[in-house]
């Protein structure tokens, strides 16, 4: 895959997709559709299909020989193309596509869906991905009410795979009324399915394609006749039989909505439960009220003074919590390792109370530790993943195991997790990434990332000649620590603040970034400022490589930095230690119309990421969901 994709011009469709249920028109078929559908009234994303047009029946024929989409076509991904459904197309491919991806929903109208799954999969997630996937329809889905096998071949960036899916027209579903609204969970499931399907189509192995096909196979679209590839046959089986369970399972996985901190009653409830006494900050930015924000400086003394009263919290966990709270430990890997090591200690000292089950009691105990840690500082996604792993390990302990054996096995599991998912993963990442460093390169990095640091040191050990630009930002100034270590090793460095990024970017040849997490839509969730660095790099056509261990991947989808973020102490951005003369905001801290905001993270859209370097290799951001889906069961959660 080419890391330096030509810049994409269209960004909007992704946003449009959120929360609504409207399937964009498969790209491959876009030219005729865009011609036909009156784009003027087609923008509303949620819509009831208008009554069918008489002309409908003929319409699909128009698609028949769909020409391979040219790369230039990507620009035509405008909403008008994506939502042609407002045109009288109840039976149009679009409507079907929608159904195809909402397996749980009743059909809104009948129709022929020519390989909806496949086309959608290549087009839906839409961005950050070379949509050069040329979809050629070898045979054409003909008319609405007839059952016509259609062969569809999807070609993807060199890897061609043919999938022919015959679409069955289901008359029965015609009669079903349109379900008014999908639940959030459903919508999420749909979106995930789409994304997964697309990523799979993109170029993973065959297995991936099978699964994706199965996942995307819908109730009404039954690929039943495998015309060409065995993959389709497999997908048929899966699609027919195992689809419901898959759907259910997925629903189960959807996490409950997180606590919204602007919901007063819930906040009150949570407060009563909490171990750490927290005072909520007064002046909060309206847009971020849903995030927890506490008066900094009130938590620590309280937690300290009740050191001996917190009986249920293991000392090691307490210590780690304290270090999170004071900021002594920060950074995704370090926090995760510290947490796991504390849990190891806690498990070592654990003994099952009489008449209790080890796995249940230990799970409850661990959960209480985690909620304590969350009160100290919100858990990062990587830590959440690690804790899920631990919980699943506890749950899967055989009942016959002695307590000591169970504890030993859990401890070694944790050890193994740390070794494999963090240390070895970092080593693999370094090995992959170092191939991207050439002599004479100027590498830019932002903040302080363990993986990037190891990469730079390793490249230096290999004798590569390169220069490093460390970009840093207030208030944490984490880059200084990195800088200190790099300079100590004799690497030539430039240190600058983020204000000067656009200046320094001229000379940079590669940008290496760390990440707190990579989400399913390819968005990179990282230290605030990362996004702007990557965007500047993108504007200068400098490749942006993100180094992120796979255990930090998450199936969540996040489009902006607002819905989920963390708020830090707002005081530290307005106060500069040691420079009293410029601290003119001091006495305005409680001023009513001043709302300081200190965001900790931001989400970098996948458009700006050339490549994600992970322990499974170098992948485009669109392949993240594949890794999440494929490796989660087998490896990450074991």
């Amino acid at each position: 895959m080419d890391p330096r994709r030509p810049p994409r011009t269209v960004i909007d469709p992704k946003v449009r997709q959120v929360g609504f249920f409207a399937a964009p028109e498969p790209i491959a078929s876009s030219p005729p559709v865009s011609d036909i559908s009156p784009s003027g009234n087609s923008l509303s994303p949620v819509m009831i299909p208008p009554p069918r047009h008489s002309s409908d029946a003929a319409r699909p024929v128009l698609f028949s020989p769909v020409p391979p989409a040219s790369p230039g076509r990507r620009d035509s991904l405008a909403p008008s193309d994506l939502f042609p459904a407002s045109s009288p197309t109840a039976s149009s491919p679009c409507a079907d596509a929608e159904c195809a991806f909402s397996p749980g929903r009743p059909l809104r109208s009948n129709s022929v869906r020519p390989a909806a799954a496949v086309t959608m999969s290549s087009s839906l997630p839409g961005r950050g991905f070379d949509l050069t996937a040329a979809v050629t329809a070898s045979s054409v889905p003909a008319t609405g009410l007839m059952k016509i096998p259609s062969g569809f071949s999807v070609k993807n960036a060199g890897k061609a795979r043919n999938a022919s899916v015959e679409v069955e027209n289901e008359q029965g579903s015609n009669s079903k009324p349109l379900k008014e609204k999908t639940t959030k969970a459903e919508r999420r499931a749909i979106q995930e399915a789409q994304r997964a399907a697309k990523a799979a189509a993109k170029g993973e192995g065959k297995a991936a394609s099978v699964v994706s096909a199965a996942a995307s196979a819908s109730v009404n679209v039954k690929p039943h006749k495998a015309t060409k590839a065995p993959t389709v046959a497999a997908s048929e089986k899966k699609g027919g039989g195992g689809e419901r369970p898959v759907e259910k399972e997925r629903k189960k996985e959807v996490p409950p909505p997180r606590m919204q901190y602007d919901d007063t009653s819930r906040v009150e409830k949570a407060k009563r439960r909490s171990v750490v006494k927290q005072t909520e900050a007064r002046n909060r930015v309206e847009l971020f009220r849903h995030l927890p924000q506490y008066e900094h400086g009130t938590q620590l003394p309280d937690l300290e003074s009740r050191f001996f009263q917190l009986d249920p919290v293991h000392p090691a966990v307490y210590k780690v919590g304290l270090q999170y709270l004071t900021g002594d430990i920060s950074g995704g890997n370090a926090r995760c390792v510290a947490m796991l090591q504390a849990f190891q200690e806690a498990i070592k000292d654990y003994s099952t109370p009489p008449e209790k089950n080890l796995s249940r009691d230990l799970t409850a105990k661990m959960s209480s530790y985690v909620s304590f840690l969350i009160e100290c500082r919100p858990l990062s996604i990587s830590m959440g993943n690690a804790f899920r792993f631990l919980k699943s390990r506890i749950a899967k302990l055989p009942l016959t195991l002695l307590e000591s054996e169970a504890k030993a096995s859990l401890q070694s599991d944790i050890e193994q997790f740390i070794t494999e998912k963090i240390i070895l993963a970092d080593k693999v990442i370094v090995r992959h990434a170092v191939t991207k460093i050439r002599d004479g390169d100027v590498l830019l990095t932002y903040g302080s990332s363990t993986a990037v640091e190891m990469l730079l040191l390793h490249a230096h050990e290999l004798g590569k000649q390169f220069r490093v630009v460390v970009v840093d930002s207030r208030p944490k100034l984490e880059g200084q620590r990195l800088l200190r270590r790099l300079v100590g090793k004799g690497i030539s460095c430039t240190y600058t603040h983020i204000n000067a990024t656009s200046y320094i970017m001229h000379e940079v040849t590669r940008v290496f970034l760390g990440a707190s997490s990579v989400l399913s839509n390819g968005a990179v969730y990282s230290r605030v400022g990362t996004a702007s660095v990557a965007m500047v790099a993108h504007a200068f056509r400098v490749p942006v490589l993100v180094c992120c261990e796979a255990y930090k991947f998450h199936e969540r989808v996040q489009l902006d930095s607002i819905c989920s973020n963390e708020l830090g102490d707002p005081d530290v951005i307005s106060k500069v230690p040691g420079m009293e003369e410029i601290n003119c905001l001091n006495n305005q801290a409680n001023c009513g119309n001043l709302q300081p905001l200190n965001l900790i993270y931001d989400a970098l859209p996948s458009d700006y990421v050339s490549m994600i370097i992970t322990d499974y290799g170098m992948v485009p951001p669109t392949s993240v969901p594949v890794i999440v889906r494929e490796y989660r069961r087998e490896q990450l959660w074991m």
Partner: protein
Amino acid sequence: MDFQVVVLAGGTSKKLVPLVSKEVPKALLPVANRPVISYVLELLELSNLKDIIVAVEGKEAYDCVEHWIVEAYIDRLRIQVERVPDDVGTAGALRAVAHLLTAKDILVVSGDIVSDVSPGAVAAAHRRHDAVVTTMLCSAPVSGPSDSGSSVTKDKAKKPGHYNRIGLDPTKQFLLYIATGAELEKDMRIQKNILCAVGQMEIRSDLMDAHLYAFKRSVLQEVLNQKDKFQSLKQDVLPYLVRTQLASEVVLNGVPQPEENGNEKASYQNNQEMLSQILANSSTSSFHELHALGPKCSLPVRRTHKCCVYIASNSKYCMRLNSIQAFNDINRDVIGDASHLSGYSFSAHNNIIHPSAELGSKTTVGPHCMLGEASIMGDKCSVKRSVIGRHCRIGSNVKVVNSVVMNHVTIADGCTIQNSVVCSNVQLQDRVVLKDCQVGANFVVTTGSECKGEALAKKEK
């Protein structure tokens, strides 16, 4: 939380001589009619620390203290009273009880602290930095009572040696230098390497070591074993640890640090190394780690340990009963400014008069006063800012100002007691005038005597 508590209750302090005696060791001196050690024990109880070792010096003191503790706390706390040899100092006392210590960290509390600073805060700071020793500092007491300036004239001329010089790093978390009263000279010696590593040191003289330490047990025991000349925690052990913090001679965590010759376990050790590096790189490193890394950022070459401080906020109360002046001050504060410590509920007049106490006509007991159980006062008496113990008989026309009168004291008519301490079973005959005096137990002050600034006590036979 894996902490053990040792309360050093001491024996009979020489500094408090007319007040303490064989019957009343230092730990049992009454503060607002309660032994001073009960303040410490209750502070610990409040922090949920119920397993306590109390070390007492001397046989008589041991008997008294044990008797009292068993009686008072038998059902609430698990207190183990240990007798340590006389005159071994605080370090010696710890040496004597070392065999009882098993926990990872030890909290050492002096038995004469009257404070409301939670020991948990010290322990938390200790744990957070994984320190070898953490000491609590509080603001040094202003000499003399804060609001009645006239009362103290003599004791105001405190020896400068009572002050500490304490060096802190800019974040006020680490202890870089400590010198206490006795060894205080005009010039101070500060380790160059410490100063180089930190870059900036803040030297304070307004802070006082509150004698509440958290020690790492392994280190404490090692130091006590190796340096058998060390007598005092404050003057020997603590300065030693502070001095050597960048050239550590103690073995951290009970295990020697891994040598660089791992062969068969090389890969495992390599992983551990990386792990610790990940942790170290992402955490804010104190100057200790930076120093340990050396200028080249290579593997840690120098061994260091951390000495932390916890500075109690100014709103907290913290005093040590280590002088007669302090005894007066604490008594006054406990029924006055820091009244929440006393555990009594105050009346509307801001004083405590036991229901069984009897007052004559026209007798006034002012605010910030305490009158113990079954005490009888005659007519026209006046009590201001004073503590009067149990079963005292006070005649008419007696003035008690700013004083402490202990139990079973008989005061005849017309006496004036100002700024003094009258111990138990003392008889003051008619028209005695005491000013700035301490009257030892069982003493009889004869009729009409006027004393000023004297310590009156029976000769020991």
